[in-house]
């Protein structure tokens, strides 16, 4: 479980996050949604430690991340897997070496064990056939799947995804969403996804948190989202024609 308490962050005088708190449960797909520029990605980066918040705490299974010793911090970090918006694969390494990289750097496995683990993870994302390809030779959807394989290769307990569907066609988006959900349930991960894709939210969101101008103004399940009376949330959720039709269909 990940708990964030009163996270605040400002860049110069612009407040990007204003005392945001939430609890992300294990085995569930937790989603942070909101329009562009509301601080979703900044919040995610604060949680994983890429940006230091001005105020607040993050707890990974009750361990205070920001006030932990360097060794504890390192230990927590090694349980984190992250899928980046642009996949962030290392250009100079093949698909196989990208997935193997965390094992080479951080584990004490034998070469045989590493090979087996890499093959297992690539097989899990259905990319075993592409293991010798370079990142420049594979499609956007495949890059995301390699990113997922790399994120889980260390037996991560926490999975963070920053806009996993950006730049993907609807079918591939659904495929990636389902893969994330399956992996979350299979390995009992605490998964946190930043997205503004309502299809994803409705498809896989167990817990949804809505950010607006740096503040959390709504939280609940994806089922409750349609019944919300929050004006900002409704404006966001029913911004496209499909969702408007859906709303009128369900009355």
């Amino acid at each position, binding site marked *: 479980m990940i708990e964030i308490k009163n996270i605040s962050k400002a860049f110069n005088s612009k407040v990007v996050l204003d005392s945001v708190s939430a609890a992300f449960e294990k085995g569930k797909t937790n989603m942070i949604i909101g329009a562009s520029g509301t601080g979703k990605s900044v919040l995610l980066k604060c949680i994983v430690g890429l940006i230091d918040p001005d105020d607040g705490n993050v707890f990974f299974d009750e361990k205070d991340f920001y006030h932990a010793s360097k060794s504890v911090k390192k230990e927590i970090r090694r349980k984190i897997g*992250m899928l980046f918006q*642009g996949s962030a694969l290392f250009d100079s390494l093949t698909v196989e070496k990208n997935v193997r990289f965390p094992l080479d750097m951080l584990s004490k496995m034998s070469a045989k064990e590493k090979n087996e683990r890499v093959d297992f993870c690539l097989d899990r994302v259905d990319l075993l056939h592409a293991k010798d390809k370079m990142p420049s030779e594979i499609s956007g959807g495949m890059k995301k799947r390699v990113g997922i394989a790399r994120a889980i290769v260390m037996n991560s307990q926490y999975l963070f995804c920053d806009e996993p569907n950006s730049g993907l066609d609807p079918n591939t988006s659904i495929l990636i969403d389902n893969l994330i959900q399956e992996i979350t349930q299979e390995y009992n991960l605490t998964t946190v996804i930043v997205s503004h894709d309502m299809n994803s939210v409705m498809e896989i969101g167990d817990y949804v948190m809505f950010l607006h101008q740096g503040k959390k103004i709504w939280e609940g399940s994806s089922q409750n989202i349609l019944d919300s009376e929050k004006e900002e949330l409704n404006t966001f959720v029913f911004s496209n024609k499909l969702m408007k039709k859906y709303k009128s269909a369900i009355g």
Partner: protein
Amino acid sequence: MRVIGRFILFLSRLFVNREPFKIYVKRFFEESIIIGTDSIFIVVIVSLFIGAVTAVQTAYNMVSPLIPTYIIGLIVRDMVVLELAPTFTAVVFAGKVGSNIAGGLGTMRISEQVDALEVMGINSASYLVLPKILASTLMYPLLVILSAFLGIWGGYIAGTLGGYITPEEYIYGLRYEFIEFNVIFAIIKSFVFGFLIASISSFKGYFTQGGALEVGKASTNAVTNSCIAILAADFLLAQLLI
């Protein structure tokens, strides 16, 4: 002053929370190939021509018959060893290796590859930059030794084939009042220049923000700032050591 402070903090980050030693050994050899071996071709071409041009232009300026011809060899030797091999090559090296380092790190930064390393708990600055600085600091002096040898050889070829000097006179000039410290001085300079080029370029590339345009700017700034630092260090070292 703020930039210098940030630069020093950046360098101190390279040695904090380091990864296991064996990882750096592997990365050092990889970087040595990229930085050192891949620069041999340009160093060979530049060195041969600077030696040749120095010989021809020295001969052109020798208007008095009272000046012995072997002076061409002496001037080529001192020019190449003291200045052209370490400093001129450093400017070329900054253009090739500096822009490559800044561009590579800048691209890694904007495509979140640096963030990916940080999330894994790896000190990205240390992992990415330290091997580059070590490789550049240790490989550049070797390139300077090669450059000095080829520069003198280039002068010999141009001088003798052009009929400006006989081979015996050129070699006599090379040996005439040779000061051994000049070679040591050139090697000291090359260690400093190698360090400056890699560290300044890494600093510029590592902190790139924005997109492709900013990566290009970071590369340009890396080369410009490295060249300024090389020339300033060249003057300081000359004042201090000669």
